[in-house]
Every structure is written in structure tokens, then in C-alpha cells.
């Protein structure tokens, strides 16, 4: 079928072909944050892996190491947003209170307002009356507030704006961007392209054709198509769309150029991508696709952050031995049965933890085997949730304190 699902259009895999046995590379987060030639860090990954928290933690750490940072978040948890002082969705960076500015850095944060960003683009591109006409069109309202790629596209648009602003005023020297919680991590790379191809697409041309287009389009095929479209979505929607397209027509070129610039910005060496994942098969699979995609688009990948990894003490007691010991625990005397319960519970916990650790390590190691040159930072799961600057600082410390060589990555 020609109309194959878009999301997984077949792409060749990219890999080393045979496994190498070099030690896994470690992502040096502090070197990345201190590198003044990097002015954009984009955090991406599938939904629910802790992208927002990771990007906020990176931004805070960079600021406290002396960078002038602005972080663009998409949908932070309420308490985290509160502690960063960005409850108001006003599309403007606001200073984050209570950061340690002794190294000369600063931190501003903002939450993306997708519709507003879109409106501003329209207003900047069109004459006031034309802009008003577009903003009032029902089709525009729907596209700007619910089109599946709008959020992704507007995040990239906002990044472009922040970058231009930073270069002009020098108020910021590092932009950290969180990406929208897409179904797939790749969506946001495709969004600008998708939106601009929509705005510039065949169908849009077709809608305009009767008004001004060449007569050859007025073929039987075209009549058939218009009839079918009218049948399916109704004449009124078609009218709205035509009005929208007619008003938008002059902006098409501008939109395509902007999408192109965004793409180039993402390829620039000033940019670094940090792929975020959790030690779960789905998240790591998405991360693998993303890493390979960045490669094929020639986009600069800094490395992978694996969040919420389980850890276990290196005490030499295997899961098997722990469970065998539980079997041997038979209450000998009445007075120490409490210790027996505690001992059995601790041993079972230990076995469970080791199984989890082993499974996650295998998953992470497999990723490393397929992508041997991707520097990786592994973050242990914290036993408490993160919703304030102290929590972010703790994550930042863990990110900065990665061992020089990863000893826990089994090879081969």
C-alpha cells in the first residue's frame, strides 16, 4: 500500500557490524556543560524517561558552573515548575530564584506556549490585517492548537528565536531544550519538515488551483478528488481550508525557510544532542533509533543518559545464593523469629534487586554493543521524587560524577 504508516517508514539500521571489545565510553557531562563552543543542548527521548528532569538538572548544573543558561521546558510537573518559578505559561524566560551564582552564571526558565508561539510567527510574517484574518480562521485555530506536530515544531521555532536573541543580546550563552513527549522520539525531528510540506503540499496547491491555478489541473481527476473530499469532510470544512490557504499562501515561503534554518541549527556544531532513556526495552529501542537517525542526519550527538538504573551493592552474594539462604532460614528458636523475618525479607529484596540490575545491565550493554561510540552516563534511581532545586542539584551531581570507565558494562 502506498500510504504506509509514516511513523516507521523503513530506515536502514546503522551499526558497527561486529562487536568491538573496547570499554564503554562514559559521557563527561561537565566537559559538555563547560564547553563554551556549545550553545545549545537538546534533550530527547521517548515519553516517561525523565527528559524534563534531566534537562532541568543539566541547565541548573551548567548555570552553577558559570554559564548563562536558559532552559525551555515543555510540560514540567507542577511542583517542579513551581520551584523553578515558571507556573505562568507566558512564553518568556524568567529568572529561576535561589540558584548559586557564585561562579558568575545565571538560569532562566520558560515553559512553551505552543499556540502563542505559532500566533507570533504568523504575526511576524504577515501584515496586521492578514494576520488577523488567519488567526480567526477556524482551520488555523485547529491546526495551531491540536495538529499532531505543532508542539514539536513550535519547540524548534522557539529554540530558533532564543538562539537569535541570545546571539543578539548576549544574555544567554547556553540554551537547554526539553522536547515534547512524543509517541516516538523521532517525531520532533520530522515535525518542521512535515508542517512545511503540508503548508507547501500538493493538496494545498490543489485547493488554491480553482482560484488562480493553471487550467490543466481542472481535470476529471481533480473533480473526483474535490467531490470525494467534500463527501468526506463536508463542504464547509473545505471552505474554511480554502480561506486559510488563500490567506496563508504568501507565508508558505517564509515557513519553509524557517523550517530549513531550524534543521541547519540542529546540525550546527554549536548544538549537542543528549538522548535520554530508561533501562527498559522500549525506551532503549527508541534511543537506538534516535541515535542512528542523528547520525544519518549528521547531527551532533553528545551521548546517552540512562535514567533510573537500579543498583545493588557489590557484596558478592548472588541472587541465587540469597534465595538459597532464604530456604535454609528455619526459625530455630522462638525468640529470634523476628530476625528471621527481617533476614528473609532482606535476602529476597537483594535477590529481586540483583535480577533487576542484571536485566537492566544486559539491556544497556546491548545498546553499547550496537552503538559502541555513544558516550553514556548511567543514573541510579533515587528513592525519592525530584521536585525542587536540591533534587535537580543531586541529579546534576550524579551526572557529573560518572566513573571514568564503566566497569558495570559487561562486554561481548
Amino acid at each position, binding site marked *: *500500500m502506498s*500510504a*504506509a504508516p*509514516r511513523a516507521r517508514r523503513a530506515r536502514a539500521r546503522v551499526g558497527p557490524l561486529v562487536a568491538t571489545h573496547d570499554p564503554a565510553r562514559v559521557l563527561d557531562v561537565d566537559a559538555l556543560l563547560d564547553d563554551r563552543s556549545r550553545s545549545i543542548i537538546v534533550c530527547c527521548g521517548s*515519553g*516517561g524517561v525523565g527528559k524534563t528532569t534531566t534537562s532541568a538538572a543539566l541547565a541548573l548544573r551548567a548555570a552553577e558552573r558559570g554559564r548563562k543558561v536558559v532552559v525551555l521546558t515543555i510540560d514540567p*510537573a*507542577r*511542583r517542579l515548575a513551581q520551584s523553578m518559578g515558571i507556573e505562568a505559561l507566558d512564553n518568556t524566560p524568567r529568572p529561576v530564584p535561589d540558584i548559586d551564582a557564585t561562579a558568575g552564571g545565571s538560569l532562566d526558565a520558560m515553559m512553551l506556549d505552543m499556540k502563542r508561539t505559532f500566533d507570533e510567527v504568523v504575526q511576524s510574517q504577515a501584515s496586521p490585517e492578514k494576520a488577523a484574518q488567519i488567526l480567526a480562521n477556524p482551520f488555523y485555530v*485547529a491546526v495551531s*492548537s*491540536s495538529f499532531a*506536530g505543532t508542539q514539536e515544531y513550535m519547540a524548534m521555532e522557539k529554540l530558533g528565536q532564543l538562539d537569535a536573541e541570545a546571539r543578539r543580546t548576549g544574555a544567554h550563552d547556553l540554551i537547554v531544550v526539553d522536547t515534547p*513527549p512524543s*509517541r516516538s522520539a523521532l517525531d520532533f525531528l520530522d515535525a518542521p519538515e*512535515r508542517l512545511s510540506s*503540508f503548508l507547501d503540499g500538493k493538496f494545498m496547491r*490543489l485547493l488554491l488551483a480553482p482560484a488562480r491555478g493553471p487550467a490543466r489541473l481542472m481535470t476529471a*481527476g*481533480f473533480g*473526483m*478528488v474535490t467531490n*470525494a*473530499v467534500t*463527501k*468526506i*469532510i*463536508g463542504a*464547509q*470544512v473545505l471552505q*474554511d481550508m480554502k480561506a486559510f490557504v488563500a490567506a496563508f499562501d504568501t507565508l508558505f515561503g517564509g515557513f519553509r525557510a524557517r523550517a530549513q534554518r531550524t534543521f541547519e541549527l540542529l546540525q550546527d556544531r554549536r548544538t549537542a544532542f543528549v538522548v535520554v532513556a530508561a533501562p527498559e*526495552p*522500549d525506551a532503549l529501542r527508541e534511543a537506538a533509533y534516535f541515535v542512528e537517525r542523528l547520525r544519518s542526519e549528521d547531527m551532533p550527538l553528545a551521548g546517552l543518559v540512562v535514567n533510573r538504573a537500579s543498583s*545493588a*551493592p*557489590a557484596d558478592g*552474594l548472588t541472587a541465587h545464593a540469597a534465595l538459597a*539462604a*532464604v530456604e*535454609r*532460614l528455619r526459625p*530455630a528458636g522462638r525468640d*529470634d523469629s*523476628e*530476625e528471621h*523475618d*527481617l*533476614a*528473609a*525479607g*532482606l*535476602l*529476597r*529484596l*537483594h535477590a529481586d534487586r540483583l*535480577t*533487576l540490575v542484571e*536485566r537492566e545491565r544486559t539491556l544497556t550493554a546491548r545498546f553499547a554493543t550496537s552503538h559502541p561510540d555513544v558516550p553514556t552516563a548511567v543514573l541510579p534511581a533515587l528513592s525519592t*521524587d525530584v*521536585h525542587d532545586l536540591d533534587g535537580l542539584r543531586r541529579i546534576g551531581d550524579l551526572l557529573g560524577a560518572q566513573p571514568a570507565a564503566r566497569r558495570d558494562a559487561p562486554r561481548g
Partner: protein
Amino acid sequence: MWVAAHSARSGAPGLYARGVPSPSRPPELFPGVQLHVVSGKGGTGKSTVSAALALALASRGKTVLLCEVEGRQGVAQLFDVPPLPYEERLLVRPQAGSGEVYALAIDPESALLEYLDMYYRLGRAGKALDRFGVIEFATTIAPGVRDVLLTGKVYEAANRNSRNKGARTYDAIVLDAPPTGRIAQFLNVNDELAGLAKVGPIKSQADTVTTLLRSERTVIHLVTVLEEMPVQETADGIEELRGTGLPVGAVVVNQVRPRDLDHDDRAALLAGSVDRSRLGSVLTGAGVEVTDELLAGLLDEGVQHAERRDLEDGQRALVRDLGVPVVELTRLASGVGGQDLGGLYELAEQLCTQGLA
């Protein structure tokens, strides 16, 4: 070729694990429901729960259709079968007894072409639509249309009519739906289109779908884990669903930690009042080579566990206050799905014994 390349998975007797307690099996929480919609925050395991629920329903002798709509091929990955096409395929049949699970990956392009074919017999015009980019336009850009197509196909599977000759009818349908943040919008197709299509076939299609979604034949389950953000998102999701008149089913709490330590032990660990030497001698008695490092490690794990459990209990109380039935699934340390389906059958059993199926 299909049969050779891919034979359906064959499940454990009665489909789910270990000692099916059929006499003691509780009554279903949602007996008259045909359509189970499963949503949840990203990363909480809604695809896993959907699959386990489909198995659990089939173990009641039902013919079940498991649908996915996000193009991720999550079902294929969970069951370790080749990618699913736009076609209902037998996924799991029981080793004994009745009840089967079929699977369908719905993509909007195929759904639109099928819809056009079923209702308009477009033939050549259908191809022309594709050539002019209309199919792509309608399925990726036109707001709301994509969702209407996806839910419309689910509706069609739930209400088979004469246009789809010879199609199978299902006792139950499990829809692995978009995440909580998008679920109300996804199911509330009517409102989504309202600003656009006020009349026309798309509008009436949306109306029919809405009638099913708001009826007693539908419930929407939300999957969460016992952490702050997912629980908050679940609470927000329930409020939003109720606000739009959509029927909330159960909250499925996934990945619940093992409960190997009782309250007193956890309190002692948190207070640091565990008698190390007695613990050490008990362990030695069980043949463990006890070192200071080992004791410290075990106690440290215990403390972390106790902290997490406290947090979980706090979140659990919030979940209980949501006013909907709560079902809990344990975290399986070895993972779920892929080549080993044991974990899925185990989760299905847990759903059965708690009445979700």
C-alpha cells in the same frame, strides 16, 4: 505464507498462570463492558497492561480483539511475533478451553481507505486521493480526523455490520490508547471536530463513535505507577474524562514493589535500630558468609526499600481516594514480554483474581 512465517502463540492452559482459581474467581468489575480502553502516562506500561487484560478476558472464554493505534508495534514486540498489519490476526489461542485473542494495528491511512471503500466504493478516486496527497493530508494534518479514523475503526470492530461481510464479531475489545495527556482529546472526537465539521459524514461518524464511547459498553482504565507524577497525571486524567462525560473504569497500579518487609521491620530499618549482630548470626546460620560489607549492603537496600515503600503508601492512599476501583500488578524483576510470555500470563492472572476480567 502467513501461517508459515507466523503461527499464533499458544498459551498456558486457560491462558493464565498457576492454579486458576475458577471457583474462587471474583465477579467481573465491569461485566457488561465490551470496549476496554487502556491509557496511562508514558512509561507506566499501558501496552503491557492492555495485553494482559486481553489475555485475562480471553480466559473467560471470550473472543477478544487487542488494538493498537500508535504505530509502535508494541503488541508484536510484547508477544514476539512479526509486525502486525492492518488486519485482524490470531495472536494467542489457549492450549485448552475456549477464548482467543486477535490483534490489529490500526493506522489512519489504511482506516481511511477502508472506510472510503466500505461506504463510497471509490475505486479509482481512492487512488487519485492518494496521488493528490489527500490521504496524507487527512490522516496527518487535518486536526481530529486522524483520531476519528482510529476510533472509528474500533467502533466498526465493536459493531460489525453487513458492509463488512464475514467479519468476526468480538465479545471484548481492548484498545491500547494514547497516553493520559492526550486521552480525553483522543476519545472526545466530537468536540475536536466541532469547530471544523458541523455537518457531513465525518461529523456523523464522530457522533456514532461518541455514542459508543459514552455508553455503558465502554470503560477507560488508567495505568499508573506509585510515583508522584504519574499519580497526579492519573488524577488529572480522571477529572478530565469525567468532565467530558467519558466513563472511567479502573486505575491499574503497575510495577508495585515486592512486599517482603513488614511494617515493623521497615520502621526499624528507617530508625536505624536493627540489631546487626543478631541479623548477622541469623544469616550465618542460613549459610551466608557474612561480612561487614554484606551486612551494610543488605541494610542499605532495606532502608532504600523502606523509603520507597513509604512514598508508595502515600501515593497509594491518593489513588484510593480517586473513587474508582483499583487493581494492582506486581513488578516482575525479570521483565515482561518478548520471548518469555510467562510474565504476561502472570499479570493476566493477577487481573483475573482482582476482577478486572
